[in-house]
């Protein structure tokens, strides 16, 4: 193949469109649509006594007002529990509009449709809801005591309880291993709430033409939203299409579905016979979408004189918010991915998933891993400190070795499959990150510190994705896949894969994602899976197309298919430059025609082709057209890995933290496009810096979110994010044809751990709770100094 684009720093083909304002996001669509606004609960916990909408009826331009009472049977049911799990014994989901009780501030109670959003909000302001305020349950420890209940029928507020235990090689339990270890440590670690916070919030726009429903949603999964809408609105699936237009970031919150609005807006469009649109505003996003990260961890570890871990026991309290629509994926990932690149003698992990009267929790980029990595890496640092050993050396002694892959951690991962690492080289990665940051030559001065953190990330979870590739008679290659894109650069990397596989110039390749009209079978974009899943599916589909192209070309050139190759979009006989046929012509020959609508088509018509008169024009087992479809369904996840190191400086007086250097070594197997991987890492680190130093959801004791705006929820600006130095290690995955692993979440995962490590080194104070603000560091110093 001479058109080798796989592995190149190909510039993102979506950038000219997205960076010059040519993107078409949800709110850019449907200028003629009616607008929706919601009356949302102002209380964290309350019983609805009465809803009086009469005040709103005078608003000119009001079209409709809906409450729970108006919902038909299927809509009146609780929303789906998307990912059931045997341990989730008390899963609870909300109704599309509140029924009787509201359980967090922001829960939708009344839906208003009006001629525009201004009028809809005016009407919302005139609707009176009479609430009986109930005592709210706020704070994970208070909730775990169970004195006050979020759901009357969930005792102790415990939605799920799960224990996983991996005994040591000699059969001893983690508790036994810890108790008999030469040294033990026990401590508590906290991570606070944050949220995905995409620049574009959620949004839904629906059109109904009397028989067919078209829905646009700012979603990470159009195929599953489509199935949910068809089921809830009782429509035949072929009459529903869902399209994810340009999406301004997802980071997990848009894989959650169906959101109440994704059902209610299409329902209203059908009832009213007019297009209807809802665009979430920022205040709504804070209180009515989803959060993540809030967990408390109790760790006990036993280890030997060399710092080798012999037993580890972690007990987790997971704050689930008011509902569990996405199941218990987050604490499961924490439980399993906590182990990182280490072989732990014996491991026991237990979590309780607790309801509180706060916004529900669903995965946010990293999805439980930042918490798990924080636990494990703080543990490594504490062992090193206790024994007076180098922090990197302790990690190295616990690494899984390169010759131990595939390595079975003995647990069940989030995809229900065994937690078996496919490949990796952790000692080499540590050597690289130490060299990059200058670990061994670090000049330790007062109020400077260096830190390190390692992680392993299960990526590319199943069950499957598909790809469709079509070569048209103009020589263009049309690639489609069902999963969605939120700005990651899929158009570029999928085009690189197709161009490489087919031997065509990349300019000839176009890519469509997330449009159920083009590809109806898909799972979605989450869990760092798009490149692994759709990338391999597209490669496999391309290989089918290539094989067919070579078969047809071999016929035309009277050559053996094995002697042919495709370069620059032309099939030719290897070593015989004269004998060639453009792929465009092969596409023409692949589709026998009766009608000559243009010059190319004329060549495929019945009197022009030299087809044998005694054989059907489309041979048995063949299909017309030069196209192929294939799926990739992995036996289990691929496991990417990374190690980050940072140098920080703390102000001795103001306690401000400055990140002086930040280094990343990353291994996601074979790189399709190093520039795009680095971009993903940079964005991830930026979000990680937010989680480590700035972002938190501040709830008061009444369950009111006190910082529900970008003025007080502190996402880092460019001025707060350090320059990021990156190096790659490429350990191919043996599990898929392209040898790749996922990269989307990587950057965010270890940032709290690495910055805690560096701040601890700078200050000589244990950092057991993240994020940490200057005020908190100041008070830690005060407590130490008395």
């Amino acid at each position, binding site marked *: 193949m001479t058109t080798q684009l796989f592995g190149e720093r190909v510039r993102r083909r979506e950038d000219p469109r997205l960076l010059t304002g040519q993107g078409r996001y949800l709110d850019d669509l449907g200028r003629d649509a009616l607008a929706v606004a919601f009356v949302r609960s102002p209380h964290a916990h309350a019983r609805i006594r009465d809803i009086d909408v009469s005040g709103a009826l005078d608003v000119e331009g009001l079209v409709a007002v809906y409450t729970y009472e108006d919902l038909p049977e299927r809509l009146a049911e609780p929303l789906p529990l998307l990912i059931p799990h045997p341990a989730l014994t008390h899963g609870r989901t909300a109704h599309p509009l509140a029924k009787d009780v509201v359980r967090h501030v922001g829960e939708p109670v009344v839906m208003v449709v009006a001629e525009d*959003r*201004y009028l809809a*909000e*005016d009407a919302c*302001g005139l609707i009176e809801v009479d609430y009986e305020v109930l005592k709210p349950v706020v704070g994970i420890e208070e909730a775990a005591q169970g004195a006050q209940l979020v759901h009357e029928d969930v005792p102790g507020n415990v939605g799920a309880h799960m224990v996983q235990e991996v005994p040591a090689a000699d059969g001893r339990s983690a508790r036994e291993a810890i108790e008999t270890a030469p040294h033990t440590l026990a401590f508590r670690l906290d991570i606070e709430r944050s949220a995905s916070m995409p620049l574009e919030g959620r949004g839904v726009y629906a059109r109904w033409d009397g028989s067919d429903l078209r829905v646009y949603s700012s979603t990470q999964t159009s195929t599953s939203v489509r199935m949910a809408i068809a089921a809830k609105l009782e429509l035949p699936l072929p009459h529903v299409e869902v399209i994810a237009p340009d999406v301004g970031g997802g980071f997990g919150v848009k894989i959650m579905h169906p959101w109440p609005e994704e059902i209610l807006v299409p329902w209203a469009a059908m009832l009213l016979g007019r297009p209807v649109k809802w665009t979430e*505003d*920022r*205040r709504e996003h804070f209180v009515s979408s989803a959060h993540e990260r809030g967990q408390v961890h109790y760790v006990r570890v036993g280890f030997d004189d060399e710092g080798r871990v012999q037993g580890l026991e972690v007990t987790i309290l997971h704050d689930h918010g008011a509902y569990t629509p996405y199941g218990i994926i987050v604490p499961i990932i924490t439980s399993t991915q906590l182990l990182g690149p280490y072989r732990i003698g014996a491991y026991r992990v237990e979590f309780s998933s607790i309801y509180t009267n706060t916004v529900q929790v669903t995965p946010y980029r990293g999805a439980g891993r930042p918490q798990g990595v924080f636990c494990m890496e703080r543990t490594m640092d504490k062992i090193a400190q206790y024994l007076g050993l180098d922090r990197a050396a302790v990690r190295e002694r616990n690494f899984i070795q390169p010759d131990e892959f595939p390595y079975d951690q003995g647990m069940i991962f989030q995809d229900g499959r065994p937690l078996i690492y496919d490949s990796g080289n952790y000692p080499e990665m540590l050597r690289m990150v130490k060299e990059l940051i200058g670990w061994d030559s670090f000049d330790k001065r007062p109020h400077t510190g260096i830190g390190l953190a390692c992680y392993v990330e299960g990526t590319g979870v199943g069950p499957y994705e598909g790809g469709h590739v079509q070569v048209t008679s103009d020589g263009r290659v049309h690639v489609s896949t069902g999963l969605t894109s939120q700005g990651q650069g899929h158009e570029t990397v999928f085009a690189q894969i197709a161009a490489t596989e087919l031997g065509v110039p990349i300019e000839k390749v176009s890519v469509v994602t997330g449009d159920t009209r083009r590809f109806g079978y898909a799972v979605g974009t989450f869990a760092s899976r798009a490149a692994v899943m759709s990338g391999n599916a597209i490669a496999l589909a391309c290989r089918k197309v290539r094989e067919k192209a070579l078969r047809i070309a071999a016929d035309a050139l009277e050559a053996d298919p094995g002697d042919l190759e495709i370069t620059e979009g032309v099939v030719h006989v290897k070593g015989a430059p004269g004998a060639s046929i453009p792929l465009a012509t092969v596409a023409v020959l692949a589709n026998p025609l009766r009608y000559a609508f243009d010059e190319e088509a004329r060549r495929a018509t019945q009197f022009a082709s030299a087809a044998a008169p005694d054989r059907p024009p489309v041979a048995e087992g063949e299909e017309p057209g030069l196209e192929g479809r294939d799926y990739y369904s992995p036996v289990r996840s691929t496991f990417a890995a990374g190690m980050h190191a940072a140098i920080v400086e703390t102000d001795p*007086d*103001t*306690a*401000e933290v400055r990140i002086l250097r930040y280094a990343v070594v990353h291994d996601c197997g074979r790189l399709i496009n190093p520039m795009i991987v680095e971009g993903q890492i940079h964005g991830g680190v930026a979000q990680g810096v937010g989680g480590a130093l*700035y972002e938190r959801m*501040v709830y008061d004791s009444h369950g009111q979110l*006190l*910082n529900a*705006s970008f003025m*007080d929820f*502190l996402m*880092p*600006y460019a*001025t*707060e994010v350090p320059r990021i130095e990156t190096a790659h290690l490429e350990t191919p995955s043996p599990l898929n044809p392209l040898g790749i692993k996922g990269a989307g979440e990587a950057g965010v995962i270890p940032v709290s751990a690495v910055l805690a490590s560096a701040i601890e080194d700078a200050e000589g104070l244990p950092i057991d709770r993240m994020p940490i*603000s*200057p*005020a908190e560091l*100041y*008070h830690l110093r005060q407590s130490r100094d008395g």
Partner: protein
Amino acid sequence: MKPPPFEYHAPRDLDEALDTLARLAERGKVLAGGQSLIPMLNMRLTAPEHLVDVNRLAELDTVETEDGGLRVGALARHSRVGRAGHPLLRQALKLVAHPVIRNRGTVVGSLVHADPAAELPAVLALLGGSVRLARPGRTRDVPAAEFFLGPLESAVEPGELAVSAFFPALPPGAGCAFLEVARRHGDFALAGVCALVTPEGHARAACVGVGPVPIVVDVSERAPDWAAAARAVREAAEPDDDIHATAEYRGHLVGVLAERAFREAAASAKA
């Protein structure tokens, strides 16, 4: 997040603007740069019946040197004022939000908004400047010490328009500094101190974010013992707890920043 209904007025000259505001009195609200008002409208935290947009009044888009200082018109944007050659305003405006906001927000608008965490009220208070308020047929100058009445509360009366502010020049040879700690670059400060030191040893400071209005403290008696001067400033501050920092930490910051600011101002005064 859409504003409630309001009637919009766009007067074409100052007389028309003053007449409109006088007629509307309590019912009218002035729109200049809109960097605070528009978010408050969108969140429905304020609901004026009438909005009087003064952006067409070219006669207010002025920055002029007049005896002993800089007169800044009501439509002069932060970015322009920052380039007008006043060293303390230049330092302060670097700390105000971000370029996009500074290109639109106005200095006089920030003074009238009277946010206790904002930089410009502190600068006006430290320098002993004033704000010129107009209504039809009458104009008055209100000194900074009488202009800031409380959080988000200034001396502007219903029907009045703040047409300009006067920032006195630094005394000859004086040095100044504006230091603050904000959670992120450009955020409202957790605490901030601006300081002025003259070659003769006069020294004073103003604090932001640690009291209902800018707090000005004259420490000339303690200069050049800057540690003692900083303690005096810290004692004058009245910080509160909020979600970003404790009162204790804020008070501590005032002391740290005041000492640093005095030293920096003193160093530049001698230079």
